[in-house]
């Protein structure tokens, strides 16, 4: 009996000393296995780099930052217990979703009821921030980016006839909604729309039909593993129309897959490779050094989310979740993906970067900074 008490005393001493060297915990749900693994890996890498940068600069308020990471396989069924675990067992100060929309939306409800701040790095489902005042999003809502795409097509590139090749998921659909919303006001006629599945890699029939439609611009939504083959096949079939993509295209792997066909592809995104911002340049360089892989939009999103969280905790001066939430709401931070601030719903307000593929690299093309156009929803 006394041995048991002694043991208990010893372990609790250890527990006490352990908490003295306490860290500030940020919880992350991310798909590391399953179909979304490539995006998950990127986003997590971005988050890890941000953590590394924060810690080597002295941490937050003297304490080191620690990421608590769980694989949710981009499944709502898993992200919910993971959220509960992070909040209750790991006692994280802030949660960050590096996962897709379904998983994020499901978890957002948990974070909101528990009144723990939750930041969506790149998931675009509009209902995520509608979960409540504890949820934030550091990337564009789909519609906003779509509207920017319409301005790009009509006003900047002066195109008239557009064909939409739409990825059939929430990402693609919300982008297209935004595009359609503004197309007419920029004198762009939408000739046709062709949906495709996230699993498709052969686009022969769509390519053939687009060729027959003969548009002068194609608004294609997708991720690098669909966009790469799509662009390649469009060009091989002799389709000359300008192709506009979005942040899903924003990775070197897209250029690698499509090869010379990627030349001239224009995308709306948040990462400016030619940016003068020290934040962006440092991010790009250090990412490549740390992971031996060129960076992409998803990684930049993960990076930004952690930076926002760290900055807010610092300004709040404590890990009190409600204070941190208020601090996040007042964010005004220059991050790798631009200057971050939030509106009343928790949606980010920032400029849209436009990049073009030139000589096998993404280069600066334009910036869209129309506040009215880019105003995210407020409810």
């Amino acid at each position, binding site marked *: 009996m006394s041995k048991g008490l002694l043991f208990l005393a010893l372990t609790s001493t250890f527990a006490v000393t352990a908490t003295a060297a306490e860290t500030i915990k940020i919880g992350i749900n991310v798909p590391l*296995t399953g*179909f979304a*693994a*490539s995006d*998950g*890996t990127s986003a997590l890498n971005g988050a890890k780099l941000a953590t590394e940068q924060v810690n080597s600069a002295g941490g937050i308020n003297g304490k080191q930052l620690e990421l608590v990471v769980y694989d949710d396989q981009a499944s709502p069924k898993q992200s919910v217990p993971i959220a509960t675990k992070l909040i209750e067992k790991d006692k994280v100060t802030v949660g960050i979703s590096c996962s897709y929309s379904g998983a994020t939306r499901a978890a957002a409800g948990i974070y909101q009821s528990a009144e723990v701040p939750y930041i969506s790095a790149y998931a675009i489902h509009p209902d995520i921030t509608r979960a409540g005042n504890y949820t934030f999003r550091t990337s564009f809502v789909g519609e906003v980016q779509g509207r920017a795409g319409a301005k790009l097509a009509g006003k900047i590139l002066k195109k008239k006839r557009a064909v939409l090749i739409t990825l*059939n998921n929430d990402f693609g659909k919300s982008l297209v909604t935004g595009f359609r919303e503004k197309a007419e006001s920029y004198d762009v006629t939408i000739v046709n729309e*062709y*949906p*495709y*599945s996230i*699993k*498709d*890699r*052969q686009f*022969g*029939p*769509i*390519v*053939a*039909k687009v*060729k*027959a439609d003969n548009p002068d611009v194609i608004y294609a939504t997708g991720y690098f*593993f669909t966009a*790469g*083959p799509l662009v*390649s*096949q469009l060009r*091989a*079939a*002799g389709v000359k129309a300008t192709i506009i993509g979005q942040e899903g295209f924003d990775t070197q*792997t897209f250029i*690698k*897959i*499509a*090869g010379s066909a990627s030349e001239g592809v224009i995308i709306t995104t948040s990462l400016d490779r030619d940016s003068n911002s020290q934040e962006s340049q440092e991010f790009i360089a250090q990412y490549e050094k740390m992971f031996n*892989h060129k960076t992409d939009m998803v990684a930049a999103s993960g990076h930004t989310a952690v930076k926002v969280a760290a900055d807010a905790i610092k300004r709040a001066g404590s890990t009190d979740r409600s204070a941190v939430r208020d601090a996040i709401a007042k964010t005004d931070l220059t991050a790798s993906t631009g200057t971050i601030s939030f509106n009343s719903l928790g949606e980010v307000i920032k400029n849209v970067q436009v990049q073009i593929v030139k000589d096998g690299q993404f280069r600066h093309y334009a910036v869209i900074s129309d506040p009215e156009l880019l105003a995210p929803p407020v409810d």
Partner: protein
Amino acid sequence: MLFFDLLVQGLLQGGIYALIAIGLTLVYGLLRILHVAHAGLYTLGGYIAILITNATGSFTLGITVSMVSVGFMGMVIYRLIYQPILEKPPFVALIASIGLFIAMEEIYRIVFGAYGITFADAPLQGTLNIAGIYLRHCEIGALLLAALLITSLSLFTRYSRIGIAWRATVTDPGMSQSFGVDVIKVRYLNFFIGSAMAAGAGSMVAVMNNLVEPTMGSVPSYKALAIIVLGGLGNVRGTVIAALIIGVAEAFGTIYLGNILDRDSIAFALLILVLMVKPTGLFSKG
């Protein structure tokens, strides 16, 4: 014009499906097993093709090594996974195969990375303009390969001794055994040929996409099942025709029915319709 363009695209996709589905129907015909893991071999074929081509600079070598090595891999899978459970109820092999397939996808992800791999210098990317229809060399290559392999298979089973013995075994294992046919050898041959063809398909798709990913086989894993049922389980000719029909149906369906059904549903809707009318598929076994 558009019509022919879509038709050609459909036949191309159908040809690829055929190459994959043949292996599946061969296994079913012989052993009544739904070899879902077959799709994992298709993916492996793609990986090996890229790896060998990147290492040696020759795609011809890449695809050859791919087909042969995956053929052997198929035989290994038969020996290790299926042979021990031949006497068990059918769902046992199905679940084991599914488990194996999941494991294979994960191994590819862990070993080769989640982003997938690409060719250092993708071969056969040039285009040919035939009467207004642009086809890339790799697409023409895929069509030719499919035609070549399917015809060879047909000739082989009709005119060679081994081929005839094989067909006999599929039709009636007991009888052929009494005629001195080594049933075990036939099984190995069966898996070798089916797997090699899938690898061929995987290699061509690798060139067409310039990308091989761990989950490349997930769509073929279930779509090939639909195709072999549509064609009549165990019937190779039926499978080829079913594959072409599905390819063409998808080509036209994705354009004109895109707002009602998604691509996968088109194949299955077709299948269910046919099965309601003809419950054993378009052609019955034989």
